[in-house]
């Protein structure tokens, strides 16, 4: 990939090329139909996953090439897994599988508690050996970061090392990034776009609407 920027410590922004802005212009548009929304989101998600994979260490390996040449190449360590936050995060699983075929994927369901209005963990199903793995946490939007931070808490409680968590999202608000950095400074955030701010309803401005609704329903 062309050089992604580390805009803040541990915040990696995809290169803002014209064609990437072109893709975002399609998925942000309220007029865009679901088929196009899904197709172009998937394209951005693959770029995020590629960037995430690029952050992983590899080990040097001696390769016996076709034609008999010996090449000092690299071997993927393969100790990764995806964890998607139900339901919007699941939309990113396909992009992850496009780049890592047999990757293990865990799920976390977090919903807003009706009484306290705070995010509450309803369900989790994670690979047994998750503590040995690098984790790609999948949630397309980073607004306040409430649910993602709760998901990180779950991962840490299962023994995952903080610096092995990569949070992949399509859009991030500065408020969410800040909250994350204060609480989990070693989590790496990989995003395709950083927007202006949150509005009073905690929606990203200008944002793209409710990602899950647009991907699954409308």
């Amino acid at each position, binding site marked *: *990939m*062309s*050089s992604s920027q580390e805009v803040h410590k541990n915040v990696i922004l995809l290169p803002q*090329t*014209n*064609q990437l*802005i*072109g893709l*975002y*212009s399609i998925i*942000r*548009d*309220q*007029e865009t139909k679901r088929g196009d929304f899904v*197709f172009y989101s998937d*394209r951005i998600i*693959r*770029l995020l996953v*590629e960037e995430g*994979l*690029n952050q*992983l*260490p*590899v080990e040097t*390996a001696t*390769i*016996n*090439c*076709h*034609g*008999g*040449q010996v*090449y*000092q*190449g*690299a*071997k*993927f360590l393969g100790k990764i897994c995806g964890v998607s936050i139900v339901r919007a995060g699941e939309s990113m699983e396909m992009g992850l599988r*496009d*780049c890592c*075929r047999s990757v293990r994927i865990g799920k976390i369901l977090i919903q807003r508690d009706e009484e306290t209005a705070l995010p509450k963990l309803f369900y989790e199903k994670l690979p047994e050996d998750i503590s040995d793995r690098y984790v790609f946490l999948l949630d397309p939007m980073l607004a306040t970061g409430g649910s993602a931070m709760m998901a990180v808490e779950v991962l840490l409680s299962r023994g995952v090392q903080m610096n092995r968590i990569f949070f992949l999202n399509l859009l991030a608000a500065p408020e969410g990034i800040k909250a994350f950095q204060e609480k989990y400074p070693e989590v790496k955030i990989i995003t395709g776009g950083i927007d202006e701010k949150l*509005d009073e309803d905690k*929606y990203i*401005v*200008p*944002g*793209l*609407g*409710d990602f899950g609704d*647009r991907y699954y329903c409308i």
Partner: protein
Amino acid sequence: MPQESSSPLKSKSSRIAPDQNDSSFFESTDNVSAPADKPSYIPPWTEPYIIGVAGNSGSGKTSVSQKIIQELNQPWTVLLSFDNFYNPLNAEERQQAFDCKFDFDTPESFDMNLMYETVKSLKQGKKTEIPVYSFKLHNRTSKKTTIYGANVIIIEGIYALHDQRLLDLMDIKLYVDTDLDVCLARRLTRDILYRGRDLEGAVRQWETFVKPNAVKFVLPTMNNADLVLPKGLENDTAISLMIQHIQKQLSHKSSMHLNHLKALGRDLSFDIKNVPNLKLLPLTNQTRGIHSILFDQNTERSDFIFYFDRMCGLIIEKAQEFLTHFDPVDVTTQANYTYKGLKVNDEVIAVNIIRSGDCFMNSIKKTFPEILIGKLLIQSDSMTGEPQLHYDSLPPNMTKYNKKILLFDSQIISGAASIMAIQVLLDHRVKEEDIILCTYLSTEVGLRRIKHVFPSVNVVIGKLSSMEDKADLWYNEERFKDSDWLFRNRFIDGLYFGTR
């Protein structure tokens, strides 16, 4: 069109030894003179070998022409028949024709100017339309045949050796000299059995028109011939001598083509860093890991396909950095905020070089769902390594202002196939700067040749090797050389499609 500066190689006549693979491209090119001033590529179809075949009606011109085509076995031979160049008739003439009272056998009944323009256009390597004449309607039909990329052109007809302008374009001129009685017998059979005439009309036509014209106009053109073939097709000795001669001429032509290709790109001041419009995939953990899987001889085929698709995805993303038509657009989001974005107005067309470029197909579809796809089949002659264009199928309207042509080939070895493919696109009036050549593995010598002839073509390369073993090349940390097996053998398509 580059044909105007074709002179520097005209004088070369040395024959190069046949070679089984592309390796001859890496050997010394000292015995080849480099093109003098502006580098140019002269594709074989810019200098097609033109054969004229004349003779009386029924003399066996067509059979002789077919025999030549069969024996030469060239990838792209075109038979141009005078039959399609009759002048269209007016209503009155057409009635005469239906009554077998129209003289079809004078030089004036043919559109010599159109024939000349057609051959001239083909000789310049241009895409050319050929009229289609109907004997049933006695008129030109609305159909046209499009011809492009011919290596050998055979002009066949009673007046093939009549017009001086045509004679000047021909490389060899044949006259098939068959006894007029034999001609009549053949003509009657053909007219009655295949052209729906009756005996009386056919005989009358022979006596009033065909025979007098044959004596008056056709016979004298025998003097323009290089070779007269008595007895037509039955004359095995003459025909095999002639075919040997043509084959010799063609192999001379193809060795000049090869030498010309080899001589390209020897410019020593070439520095990858300063080549405009070139993008190399950066070496990252991921790309290094993917290269390792693709190069590894122990990799399973399913893994090879999966990782090659990923590699193609990265190359195609990179290629889009060459798009140029982005227009500002205000987008309204679901929550009614405005996003100042960009609309991509480039229309991308993919052209695959069969079959090595087809490996990109999966990833192309994942990036551009509704893309138009063109195909080119270019193969290297197994004896000489000379690239030959066998087939082209390209979408219409490739020249609109906002079109970008992504040209795919998974490997650039000698550069010859890419150069030929680019020339095909240019012949279809695509602009050099609108072509984005995408490849996974490329040699430096191949890249040099391409950039030397087509400096404005954009190129995206996954992994570039070097001509010499040099340390500290920012793009080639692993020090791959052009002469390494991986870079000089076409192995990707075989592994991808499982034919190896």
